[in-house]
């Protein structure tokens, strides 16, 4: 499987494909708070979160399930606005969605009634910034790099899960984002496909060093991919710690069996376990609501 990927899916020299304006963006998250619900039953999801996403780094966010990771993605992408605090992209305040911040969603968001090609060119066509042959050429190059050149005319439902994710990566890259935001992009894939996709994605990243925010709930995936590992607390999400992952690049899956990776995993697991236990505490202690 690994050999198949290596032979056929040569990683993109995406820097050239995605254009020179892309990459090296930094994001500052300053004291961001977000809560949902009516005033009398508000639930804090993110509380005083301050975090820097460094340019050219792959920052991976992990946290317990339901801690507010996807909310953080929505805030950075501009789909939602923080109640307090601010998010800055290259020093400019984020006020709404923009092509500078491309999001790859948990489940595929390819438009089902459009072919792979039509999906990939949707953004440039929408904005009208690349046209005609140049657009076709760029889309074709990107689709070739992600190994989907023979599937340009297929609809998303006719692609496997892994192919859909690669098509989504191509669709994101053609828009030349300053930061790629990936919200558990390989969730729902089987273990083998997920491993392949992680390696594939990592090679894309290492070629091009886009600023990247990757959200996941799996520690191994996080350590395998990350330059910086951000561990969030249980809800409301706060910054617990940032671990710099100093594993050599280019990385292969074997790196996860190294003592260093094991040590990173242990450290992150310890924090995450504490946070996860916080949400289970009432049931663990066996206390019933309303009883002393």
């Amino acid at each position, binding site marked *: *499987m690994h*050999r*198949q990927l290596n032979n*056929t899916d040569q990683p993109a020299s995406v820097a050239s494909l995605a254009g020179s304006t892309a990459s090296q963006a930094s994001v500052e998250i300053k004291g961001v708070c977000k809560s949902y619900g009516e005033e009398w039953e508000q639930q804090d999801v993110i509380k005083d979160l301050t975090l820097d996403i460094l340019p050219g780094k792959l920052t991976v966010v992990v946290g317990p399930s339901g801690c507010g990771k996807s909310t953080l993605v929505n805030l950075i*992408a*501009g*789909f939602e606005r923080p109640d307090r605090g601010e998010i800055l992209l290259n020093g400019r305040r984020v006020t*709404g*969605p*923009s*092509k500078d*911040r*491309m*999001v790859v*969603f948990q*489940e595929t*968001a390819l*438009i*089902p*009634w*459009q072919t792979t090609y039509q999906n990939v060119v*949707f*953004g440039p*066509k*929408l*904005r*009208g910034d690349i*046209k*005609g*042959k140049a657009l076709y050429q760029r889309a074709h190059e990107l689709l070739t790099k992600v*190994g989907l050149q*023979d*599937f340009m005319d*297929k*609809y998303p*439902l*006719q*692609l*496997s899960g*892994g*192919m859909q994710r690669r098509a989504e990566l191509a*669709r994101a890259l053609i*828009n030349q984002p300053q930061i790629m935001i990936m919200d558990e992009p390989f969730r729902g894939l089987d273990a083998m*496909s997920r491993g*392949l996709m992680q390696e594939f994605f990592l090679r894309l990243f290492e070629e091009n060093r886009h600023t990247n925010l990757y959200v996941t709930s799996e520690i191994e995936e996080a350590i395998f991919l990350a330059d910086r590992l951000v561990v969030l607390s249980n809800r409301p999400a706060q910054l617990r710690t940032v671990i710099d992952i100093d594993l050599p690049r280019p990385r292969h899956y074997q790196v996860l069996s190294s003592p260093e990776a094991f040590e990173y995993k242990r450290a992150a697991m310890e924090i995450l376990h504490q946070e996860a236990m916080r949400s289970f505490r009432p049931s663990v202690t066996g206390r019933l609501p309303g009883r002393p």
Partner: protein
Amino acid sequence: MVSVSEVSRPIGIARSRRSFLRRTLGRQEFWRGCVAIVVFLILWEIGSRSGEWFGYTLPHVGLLPPPSDVAVAWSKVLMKWGYWESWYQSFKRVLTGFIAAQIIGIPFGLMLAVNKYFRDIFFPPFEVLRPIPPLAWVPASLIFWPTNEMSIAFVTFLGAFFTIVINVLGGARTIDVRYLRAVQSMGASQWDLGGRRGRRDDLGRRHAGRWRSRLLHLEFVYGRIAAANRCRHDLDRHCRLPFKHRHPHDRPQCHALAQAVLIRKTGADHAQAAQ
């Protein structure tokens, strides 16, 4: 070792290439339907002729002419010009009403779906009028319109309008938020999505080629509606979505909408090919 591409064999390709007639004749449900119609006609014939055959006239059914008599009478009028003239006139009335319902109903439904303010203002009166059956509008339509033809077309319009609006509204409202967010992050503005009025800076940035994005957006919404309503025949032929992903229910009201999408889609494809 199996590659990813080998695992994902396109689903649509494996479908049978038999002709529509052969496929239809090979289906059990087709023959069950035929038998049901024949049994219905036999029961109708027996019921209508019950007095003649059994000496006891069945209530209600016994008063109807039997289907055999209807067929004989029909064969006599087939050659008359007036009969076909009636067909033509009926078609004209129904099509006029139906097309008018689509022209008004589809944009109205879309606006209800994508604009909160529009929905807040127009949906309550729409819901007040919707339960009124079209026939109850007949007296009012006679007053509203100067000719009988227009009154009939109006009643037909009402019969189709509410159904079309509800269909379009339902389809557009089921657009997954992921798709909307995906196109937003690709540069579609709130205006493109037909949502709240665009901000001042958005309006300032709009350029001459913006109509193109608007068309794309319409394609997006129409396509989603068509998919949501499972317009099986048209989409199956043109978009080649795999059959197994369709819902068995087919809504004919939506076919015209699907065709609008396909016309737009075909036009866009030709334009792209020309480029």
